[in-house]
């Protein structure tokens, strides 16, 4: 679910690019040394996982793991997502060079909300994990609908994106599983 260059209004793309570079600076202030490898490996995981394409409804979807990125990195997820999208656009030509900004804002918002949910300590952990996974997909999709609409697309675009409901559920299950596994191995990756 990347927006390629040339599809939505260039004004939006450029504005988003400027905003997201700003946000990289804000979210990346005073990153402690110990956080750095975690940011790198989460980025690599996001990138590698995006290479796995699952054929679906005529096109293909791939796991995004933005919910998990939120869980693992919190507000530090944004610079990582920005970098991942930069990699994807240059290496895989998924998304575009100009659209790195808009795409990171979309996915970053998903990760951020996932993190907010994850922080609700009163909810049972499995529920939080699953919901974070689901939100990590739904929010970006919702934002994309809005952006397409602002670029002149009709609201019928909603139908196109409704298939992502299934992807969202799948990611919910994935994040639930990943969280459980890390708890079991007492890994320090879950801060």
């Amino acid at each position: 679910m990347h927006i390629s260059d040339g599809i939505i209004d260039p004004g939006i793309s450029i504005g988003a690019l400027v905003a997201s570079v700003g946000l990289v600076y804000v979210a990346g202030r005073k990153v402690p040394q110990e956080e750095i490898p975690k940011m790198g490996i989460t980025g690599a995981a996001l990138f590698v996982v995006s290479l796995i394409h699952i054929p679906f409804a005529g096109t293909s979807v791939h796991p995004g793991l933005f919910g998990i990125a939120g869980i693992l990195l919190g507000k530090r997820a944004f610079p990582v997502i920005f970098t991942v999208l930069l990699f994807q656009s240059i290496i895989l030509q998924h998304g575009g060079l100009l659209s790195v900004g808009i795409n990171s804002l979309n996915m970053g918002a998903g990760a951020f909300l996932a993190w907010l949910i994850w922080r609700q300590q009163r909810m049972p952990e499995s529920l939080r994990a699953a919901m974070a996974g689901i939100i990590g997909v739904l929010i970006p999709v919702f934002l994309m609908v809005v952006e397409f609409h602002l670029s002149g697309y009709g609201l019928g675009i909603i139908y196109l994106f409704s298939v992502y409901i299934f992807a969202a559920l799948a990611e919910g299950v994935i994040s639930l599983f990943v969280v459980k596994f890390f708890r079991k191995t007492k890994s320090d990756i879950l801060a």
Partner: protein
Amino acid sequence: MRHHFIDRYSDLNSPVHRLDPRVKILLAFLGILIVVSEPPGRLLPFAFYGGLLLVVLLLSRLPFAFLLKRYLILSPFIVMASVFYPVSLYFAEETQAIAFHQETIEVALSIFLKASLSLFLLIWLISVERFHILLLGLRKLKMPKLVGTISILMYSYIFVFWDEALKTTRARESRTPGKLQRIKLRTYANQMAMILLHSWERSKTLHHAMLSRGFHGEFYSMREPGLKKADVLFLALFLLLFLHIRLFTDPLFIQ
């Protein structure tokens, strides 16, 4: 013998390959910017952009079959996005009437052409420079340092991931008789998580190794790029051509 899935043709030797990475990045970025800023519905300029792109590709000596194949693999999303332009209008009551007018179709077509040209510029970019030199170039163009640092780590960790995936598969295979049966799903899930976990552990030690060899988040390369006159000329020439098409196609070709 490198990991070819990343930057397959970046080792060719052409005048374009020898340019400074910054030139290539700027050409791709500004080229895309100029192309996508075409007002919706204008179609003629794309013939000229296409011609210009062809010249760049020829100068880069890239095999066309490869470029075309790569494009075809990636085009479905572009096709879908253009087709959905009229369709999405059709599915909303207030815009249904104009959904399949000629102008709407022309807008859809220009979306398709813009996206296709941008895509070709991206495919070109990764085919004329090694990926990590591109990152170095981006950093020299003032990409935020944090993004640079994450990039360096990600670039090595991607291989760690591949490696771990390969290893665990091997390890599992060597102790399973043919297909996994009873505990199939759980084992696959376990394996995926283990890949993550192992990679995480290794990422920490590798980061240690980097730190103990002076890593402080910056890019270095044995061949420091340097802007030469030819670099600037190349960039200026092609950008001017792009701009010329953008600004002056219309008056000449008004229908």
